[in-house]
C-alpha cells in the first residue's frame, strides 16, 4: 500500500516537472521613444499568471537618465555614511566588500574566471549550447522601427547601410524591421515591440547535453574552483 502511494507521489512529481518544462513562458516587450519621451512596458507571464511586470511611464530621456544618476548618487552617499560610522562596523564593511568583489573563491563560494585555454577548448560546445538555447525561443512578433540622424548625412547613410545589413539577419524571424535615416539633423526615435515564447524543456536538454561534454565540465570545474 505504502509502495503504491510512493509510486503515485513520484508519478505526480514527474508530471509536475514535465508540466513546468513544457508550459511556455511569454515575454512581451514594448519600448518606444517619441520626441524626448521614453515609455514602455515589459511583461513576463506563465500560464496566464503575470510573473513580472514593469512599466516605464512617459518621461523624457534626460529625466530617465537623471533619475538613474540620482539613484547611483544616493547609493554612493549611503556607502560613504556607513564608512563614517566608526570602526565598529569596519569588519562588516570588509565582509560586504568581499561579497561584492570576491577574491577568495574557497571563502565566498562564488565563481572565478576560467583560463583562456579552457574557454577556447569549450568555445565550439558553448556555441552549440547557445544555438540550442536560441532554438527554444519562439519569436511570435517582432516589430522594430528606428528613425535616426547623426547630424552628418554621409555618416547617417553609412550607418543606415550597416544597420540594414544587420537587420537582414533578423530576416530569419517573421519580424518587421524598419530603419529610416534622417538626413536633416540629429534625431533618435523608435519603438520595439516583441512577443516571444520559450519552453524550459529545450533549455534543460541543452544544459544536460552540455554537461556531457568534457570541455564544458572542465570549464565549470575551473569556475567553481574544483580543478
Amino acid at each position: 500500500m505504502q509502495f503504491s502511494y510512493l509510486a503515485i507521489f513520484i508519478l505526480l512529481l514527474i508530471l509536475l516537472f514535465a508540466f513546468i518544462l513544457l508550459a511556455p513562458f511569454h515575454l512581451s516587450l514594448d519600448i518606444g521613444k517619441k520626441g524626448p519621451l521614453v515609455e514602455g512596458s515589459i511583461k513576463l507571464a506563465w500560464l496566464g499568471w503575470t510573473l513580472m511586470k514593469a512599466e516605464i511611464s512617459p518621461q523624457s530621456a534626460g529625466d530617465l537618465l537623471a533619475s538613474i544618476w540620482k539613484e547611483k548618487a544616493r547609493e554612493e552617499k549611503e556607502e560613504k555614511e556607513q564608512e563614517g560610522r566608526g570602526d565598529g562596523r569596519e569588519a562588516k564593511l570588509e565582509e560586504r566588500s568581499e561579497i561584492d568583489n570576491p577574491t577568495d573563491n574557497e571563502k565566498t563560494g562564488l565563481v572565478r574566471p576560467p583560463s583562456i585555454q579552457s574557454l577556447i577548448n569549450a568555445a565550439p560546445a558553448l556555441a552549440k549550447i547557445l544555438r540550442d538555447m536560441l532554438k527554444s525561443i519562439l519569436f511570435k512578433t517582432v516589430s522594430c522601427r528606428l528613425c535616426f540622424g547623426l547630424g552628418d548625412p554621409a555618416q547617417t547613410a553609412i550607418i543606415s547601410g550597416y544597420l540594414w545589413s544587420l537587420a537582414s539577419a533578423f530576416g530569419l524571424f517573421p519580424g518587421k524591421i524598419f530603419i529610416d535615416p534622417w538626413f536633416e539633423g540629429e534625431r533618435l526615435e523608435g519603438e520595439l515591440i516583441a512577443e516571444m515564447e520559450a519552453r524550459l524543456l529545450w533549455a534543460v536538454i541543452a544544459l544536460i547535453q552540455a554537461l556531457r561534454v568534457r570541455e564544458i565540465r572542465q570549464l565549470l570545474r575551473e569556475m567553481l574552483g574544483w580543478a
Partner: protein
Amino acid sequence: MTMENIRLPEMDMRVLVSKEIIAGDRTIWPVMRISILNTCEDRILAIQITPLAMLIIEPAGQYAVSFAGEPMTIEAIIELAAPLRDVLEKTRGSAKIIKVD
C-alpha cells in the same frame, strides 16, 4: 496577385550638405547626392552617396569646386544646395564685423 498590387522599387534622391571640414583657416562644405533605393515593402535596398561639389571658404574669399571637373560658380553651388546660402551669409556677416573692428 493583381497588377494593381505590384509596385516597382522607388528611388529617392536628395542633394544634401554634409558636415563642414575645418582645415586651418579653410572651411570645406561638401555637397553630395544621396540616392536611396526602396523596395516595394518600404525597406531600403541600397544607398549611394555621390560627392557633387564643395564650397571652400577661406579668409581671402569663397569659391566652389565641382567634382565633375567643370568650373563652378558660387551661384551654381547655391542653386544645387540651398542651405549653403545661409552659410555664406553668416560668413560674409562675420567678415564684415571683423573689418569694422
